[in-house]
């Protein structure tokens, strides 16, 4: 989640990412999410992706953004040569304010220049804007989200005294993890009520094995074992483990294996130690690892 959060970029801290895809992002559909997204996009209905961290929400949005843009290009609605970014993602954090999303004036010599924020850019160029972990952001951001997320589809830019009508290909997608911060922060009902919600969870074992194999490059057997480990470990959620183990971590374990680390050791590092500080739970996960993997 935090890999790309903040990057130095021209003296401005970058907290968002504009995606250009050289090829189709790999995404294995789990249920009917692709059709739902398509339908929602058709009707320009904003989406809320609910689910634990590392279960494929971001990857899904990337895939959808790419696919929908490719279709537009194929149908001649968009030109092949001057493709704009189909997706802008923002990792929300507790200091993220409305002006971070909309934009602000910056000093350039004696001049001031207006720089669009990621949301404004998406609204203008017609990208999908993905606000990851929206509840983390400051409350003033809801002022922006609400008019964008209902029939009006407008973005108020207070500083410039403007209202921007969203590009027809703009779509707002937000994500929310009801699990881990539920006791601290909940999504406001007034916000929730504006979005179609798609539930995400970790993929079922077979699908997850395929994903792991694809993403990490481990062989079929190891990826099946990793997926099995994922399934087993997630069952400890009722026994003191806060979150299960993410698909992401299982992929990391796979990558360690590919680079020559023994399976058990790779899982110890990427799974057992990564997910918990409770010694007994860690031990139990390690025993499960030892049971599943031969070496």
């Amino acid at each position, binding site marked *: 989640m935090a890999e790309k959060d903040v990057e130095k970029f021209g003296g401005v801290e970058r907290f968002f990412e504009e995606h250009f895809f050289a090829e189709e992002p790999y995404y294995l559909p789990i249920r009917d999410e692709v059709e739902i997204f398509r339908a929602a996009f058709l009707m320009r209905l904003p989406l809320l992706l609910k689910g634990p961290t590392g279960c494929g929400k971001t990857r899904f949005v990337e895939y959808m953004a790419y696919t929908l843009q490719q279709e537009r290009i194929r149908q001649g609605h968009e030109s092949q040569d001057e493709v704009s970014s189909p997706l802008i993602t923002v990792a929300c954090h507790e200091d993220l304010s409305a002006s971070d999303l909309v934009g602000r004036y910056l000093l350039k010599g*004696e001049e001031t220049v207006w720089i669009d924020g990621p949301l404004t850019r998406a609204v203008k160029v017609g990208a999908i804007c993905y606000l990851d972990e929206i509840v983390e952001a400051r409350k003033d951001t809801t002022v922006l989200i609400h008019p964008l997320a209902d029939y009006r589809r407008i973005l108020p830019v207070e500083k410039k005294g403007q209202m921007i009508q969203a590009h027809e290909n703009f779509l707002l997608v937000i994500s929310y993890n009801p699990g881990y911060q539920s*006791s601290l922060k909940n999504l406001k009902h007034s916000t929730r009520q504006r979005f179609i919600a798609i539930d995400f969870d970790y993929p079922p074992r077979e699908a997850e094995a395929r994903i792991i194999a694809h993403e990490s490059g481990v062989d079929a057997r190891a990826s099946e074992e990793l997926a099995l480990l994922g399934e087993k470990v997630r069952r400890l959620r*009722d*026994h003191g483990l806060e979150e299960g183990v993410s698909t992401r971590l299982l992929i990391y374990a796979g990558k360690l294996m590919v680079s020559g680390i023994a399976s058990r050791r790779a899982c110890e590092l990427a799974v057992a130690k990564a997910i918990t500080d409770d010694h007994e739970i860690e031990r139990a996960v390690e025993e499960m690892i030892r049971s599943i993997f031969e*070496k």
Partner: protein
Amino acid sequence: MDKSPPTVRLAEVSRLLQLYCAAATGKPLRIRSTEEAPREFVREGHHLPLTDGKTIYLPNFIEKHLSREENFAEYKVYAAHQAGYIEFGTFELDIDVVIDHPVFSAFEEQAATVDPEAIVSHYDLFFMLFKESQLARDIFFAIEDGRVDYRLREMYRGLAADMEKVARASLEGRAVAGSLPLREALVEALTRLSITGKIDESFLEKFMVVPMRMNSHLQREEIDESLPEKLLPLYRRICGLFARVLSHSATVTDSAVATARVYLLLGSLPNVSFGSPFLDSATRGTGHAESERMQHGIPAGRGVPESEPLPYRASQPVAFRGQTRPELVQLENAIELLKEAVVTQEDSGAALTHDLLEMLLKRVVKIKISQMTAKELAETSGLFITDLRGVLQEKIGELSPDARKRLAKLLDRASVAKGKTEDSSRVFFYDEWDYLSGDYRPRWCRLREISLEGESSAIVSQIQKEQAALIAAVRRSFQRIRPEMLRKVKRLRSGEEIELNDAIEAVLDRRAGLTPSERVYQKRDRRMRDVATVFLLDLSASTDEWIVEEPLHESGGPRHGGASRSALFGYFSLDAGSERAAMRGNTPANSPPNGATPGGAVSSGARDFSPPDRAMRVIDIEREALVVMAEALESLGDMYAIYGFSGYGRENVEFFVIKDFSEKFSERARRRIGAIKPQKSTRMGPAIRHAMQKLVATDCRLKALILLSDGYPQDYDYGPDRTSRDYGLHDTTVALREARKKKVHTFCVTVDQAGNDYLRAMCGGENYLVVKRPSALPKILPRVYRGLTI
């Protein structure tokens, strides 16, 4: 017992194994010592592992091997096998499915003799199909255990290595098949095969009719060469039947079918010893044509053996597979469902009828039940299974099936929604921490939310009048502390300091020719207090007791001595921990409590006195304190709720709503405060957990839970030992810890003078206070509140 270092004791590894099994099966299984196993489950003596479907019983220690690793691995294999029954569906045997298989046409005669009135499980019925039921059992377990182990080895390739070692070791000390009478010899050969789980591929190819998956390479040595040459064809057929369950897709039904087939094969043999001349005639003609016939369950006609058949003796148990009795597990599961149904129907006020029970039981057990009231069922739930059978049997007969539809619905709810709580009925289930096993007992406590209605708010008005001065003082003191709050508010037009980011933005705006925002100041917040607090009130019977305090002016010398320090603070008997906690957030200057009158901390928890002048019971003081608190909080504007709790037994935890977060301190809430009265026991864990749910739902930034009590947690079934408080204390400790994990500030205030003994551990350090003079509680509580929420 613990004489050599490599010994591994169950106590050291039980939580680990418990978590392991939970991960493996997805079920909250407990780990216990075999010594604690219910009597009726134990067949073979106390050392063999077993499960009743909810708990896995393992030996107290293992010291077979020279290293701890190996001894632990042995434990793990034991636990994995028992968990494997659950993981791979052993207890899901359904006689209705099994009996549909053609092979059972051979058992029709025997089936007709089965008493339909008996209360039995699917397994009981299954074994009743066989005349020689012990033989059938031995065959079944050899096959089913083999299937479970096969699935384990296939799923857990790492564990397979440990299993292999344990399995090999278990072969030692078993009888040589060739030394046993015929049937026993073949059963033993089958058992050995099942233990190793390895079948020679080449000979199976020759004898197998159905193709199958091999789980291992050729293992010449597994062929039991102790069997006489002439029995080999029969043995190979048995091998072939067994091999069919060694498959990813085989289920317990397949094991049952294979059992019937093997039984038919063996049933055709008399149990004579090998030396018998019968052997020649018995094995003659087990060629191909005949085997087809036998496959379909038609026993071949045989000559009468010349030597006397010996009675069949049960097969020697396989230690690592244990002695689980699936028929009893099925019954246990049924009872579990029954109990739940009873609970559910109690809440909805419907009667438990014949139909309901029968539908319920059809899923798990074949039981013919008759009328039985909820109460009777509830009473039997604590009894041994055998007794339940008796009760059920007695009740067979007379019944009037009434509200069918309603009950059918109820049933669905009870059996489907095991893990869900029913919002509408306001019944909640909470786990309880069992320190003896080091894990939660899932859904152990049933808590009912009751809204307490009162008739008059007169008591409250009276308190308001009597305590008007105190209420005013507390309000003032709350106002004084408000500016100290740390929360910053930004974007103000004027304020204490300039907020850099906003200021820069304003400068830029001006440069850009925009009207810059003037809102560049920040200050500490006055308005943004975002606090929610639960006052959780112990309403146990003991709060009915009178409190006698000596008047303050007589307190020249403290009765219990050592009060010099308390004198400083007036009302407190503070040990170091509680003192700091209570004072947290206050500068020394405003430390003394409002209206503090220095005096001795003389008090008396004296009980059973007749009411003296101005005598108050604990509950009256609790009430007084709450009224003062509520009045002050109303002016501060913080969110707060008041709940009381009591109950009797884990099924009956009562949670009284006196004032919810969403309510004002209304006339109605005042009446409810007036109505609080001493109730029954003090099961703190579930009450705390429920209060937590409420707190979390407020979504406030700062959450606090203040527990007001007069003694340690206690309930008649709060732990296995009624006389020990340890269990209740541990559960409460864990409940409070859970709360703190969710970022809730917890604090316990007690008037129990013995509180220091246990509160430090229970409250996780310094978050508690023992009030020496209970009558000072109304003054102390606001201070505690202030300390907690700043």
